[in-house]
């Protein structure tokens, strides 16, 4: 595909790897924020090509992984109600709630459908006026514009049987929370390219300045990631800590103004609990009062659902970059994609799932 294949070229990748090696004089630890980047790094074996001591810490940027258990239990309760068509991105079907997942709810007779766009859910609502159609609107700033557009359209077109179960999360507050951690080892960030293509880059220079870390906006193909790493290392080696854009073909400083305007109309900032991390103030979006009528949490009686997360898994530490997935005692044993203990094992973008799917030979237990 144009603009993708060119950025996977092995020969060009080799040049970048050489440049990274040439620029590196000592160990560095940097975090790739987005789960898509983690997936690509493990998928292509990019971390195996880096100089010894240059460590990629996998960030909290998997939307499935950080969606709180409580909202999943609410989703399960809504999906199980008669007369509901519950629509979701595919990943979310296997995320365990307290005792079930959406696959199990579906197998017991619920109408759970995988859609590729929230607008498809709106179309289903218009085709089924006697049903309540709910879309599970999760994710970062990347998935939010489409969800916002869908609610906007639902209001404009007057589709009263559509609602959105919202659990959006925002990247910059999470990066700040990570840097505030007393155990933080992160010396630089590869910022999430597609988040920046929506929101622009204005939020990052203050973070780079406050925490004295380079922040390099980075894409997702192998060459994008290697270039992001190269620019990061050059900054680290020279003691700089600035925002840089290594993904200019997709990211402009101002982001996508039309999407931002839509987001500001439909959503408002709220405190949000991140699975495995805890509550981070002002780190999420909920529907604004103007669109409250389309809020599934108000439409269905789920306010009473309160779920405590408790188990042995250390996904929180994985999400914080404090441990690698295989350093968890449950990894690959009690916890596998077939029986995920934690959300990081559920989504293919989750660090644990990426490790398990593309795990190194030395991790294979024979």
């Amino acid at each position, binding site marked *: 595909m144009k603009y993708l294949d060119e950025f996977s070229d*092995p020969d060009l990748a*080799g040049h970048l790897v050489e440049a990274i090696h040439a620029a590196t004089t000592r160990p560095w630890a940097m975090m790739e924020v987005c789960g*898509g980047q983690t997936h690509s790094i493990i*998928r*292509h*074996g990019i971390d*195996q090509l880096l100089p010894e001591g240059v460590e990629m810490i996998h960030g909290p940027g998997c*939307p*499935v992984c950080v969606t709180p258990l409580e909202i999943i239990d609410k989703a399960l309760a809504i999906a199980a109600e008669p007369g509901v068509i519950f629509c979701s*991105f*595919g*990943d979310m*079907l*296997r995320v*365990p709630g307290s005792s*079930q997942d959406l*696959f*199990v709810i*579906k*197998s*017991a007779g619920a109408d759970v459908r*995988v859609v*590729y766009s929230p607008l498809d859910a709106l179309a289903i609502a218009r085709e089924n006026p006697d049903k309540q159609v709910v879309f599970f609107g999760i*994710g970062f700033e990347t*998935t939010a514009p489409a969800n916002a557009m869908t609610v906007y359209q639902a209001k404009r077109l007057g589709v009263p049987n559509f609602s959105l179960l919202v659990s959006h999360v925002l990247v910059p*507050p999470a990066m*700040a929370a990570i840097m*505030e*951690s*007393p155990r933080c080892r992160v010396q630089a960030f590869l910022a999430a390219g*597609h988040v920046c293509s929506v929101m622009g880059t204005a939020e990052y220079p203050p973070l780079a300045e406050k925490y004295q870390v380079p922040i390099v906006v980075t894409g997702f193909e192998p060459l994008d990631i290697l270039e992001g790493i190269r620019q990061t290392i050059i900054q680290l080696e020279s003691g700089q800590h600035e925002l840089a854009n290594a993904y200019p073909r997709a990211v402009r400083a101002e982001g996508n103004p039309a999407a931002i305007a839509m987001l500001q109309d439909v959503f408002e900032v709220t405190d949000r609990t991140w699975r*495995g*991390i*805890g*509550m981070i*103030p002002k780190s999420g979006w909920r529907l604004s009062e103007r669109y409250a009528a389309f809020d599934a949490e108000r439409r269905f009686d789920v306010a009473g659902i309160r779920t*405590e*997360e*408790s*188990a*042995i*898994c250390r996904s*929180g530490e994985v999400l*914080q970059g404090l441990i690698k997935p295989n350093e968890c005692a449950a990894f690959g044993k*009690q*916890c596998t994609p*077939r*029986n*995920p*203990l*934690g959300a990081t094992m559920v989504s*293919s*973008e989750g660090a644990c799932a990426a490790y*398990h*799917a*593309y795990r*190194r*030979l030395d991790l*294979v237990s*024979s």
Partner: protein
Amino acid sequence: MTAELDFEAWTCPVPLRDTPFVVMGHGGGGAMSGELVEHLFLPAFGDAAAPGLADSAVITAGGARLAFSTDSYVVKPMFFPGGSIGDLAVNGTVNDLAMSGATPLYLSTAFILQEGTALADIRRIARAMGTAASAAGVQLVTGDTKVVDSASGDGVYVNTAGVGIVPDGVVIGPTRAAPGDAILISGDIGVHGVAVMSCREGLEFGTTIASDTAALHGLVADMIATDADIHVLRDPTRGGVAASLNEIARAAMVGVELVERALPIPAEVRDACSLLGLDPLQVANEGKLIAFVPEDTADQVLEAMRAHPHGAGSKRIGRCVPEHPGTVVARTALGGTRVVSMPIGEQLPRIC
């Protein structure tokens, strides 16, 4: 900001171990399908079960070595670019027989029809079956039809079973994979799965890709005619190349090493998988086979495969190794390695 964060008490939900109901993943051809057979069917069948690990069982009856196989077809939609459920029902079972090296002879056909399905659709499917059977040189010798009410079923389900004769001296099966074998594939990967997904409800996307459904026993016969000692043949249907290679690696307790740059994945399959968040190695094929053959005969077999219309795009994609038994490893284009896992259940499209 961080005062509220709890950095020590990271917690996760109670694990979801087993489901009390059948879920869609049980039919995905991956680990969940395998677990259903291993943990439910085989123990329940008890002593009556004599399962093989191959696509078809080879049995001896009346002095003849027969290959015997059955498969049910529930593909949705029933018609897709390049074929229909009727083509699959004939070619799929013919191929299961061919993977034992058999010459397919006779097929049964059983239909479960949903009340209200258009007879014109049934006729179109039946005609496709007749055409495919004639092309494959097999006869449809017995059958059955059942109708379920409009609240049950989903259009048309087809089951076919087949028998064929395995030539003397031909022993092909997954346990014969051996270190030193070359691994060959008869053409492009992932074509059928992408063709079906491109017209699945709610997922429509434009592509010129058409299903690769085809009967492969002619190709197999040409391969056998080289006199090479073919160790394993497999048609990588549900679960794709990844599932087939993992099953072979585990059956023979050998390692499999793929070379990612050698995999014939058409740009359209790669792009569709990239958009949908799927792995081409896990996408279904319906007219392709994987062969494990001793290295010293690999070129000869490849030549025979390429001379056949269904094998024109044949390529060498890897080798069988003594290291990491039971595991499939791919060398990435960038020079790293990754393990190619057994798919679990259904492939889940990624969120973004």
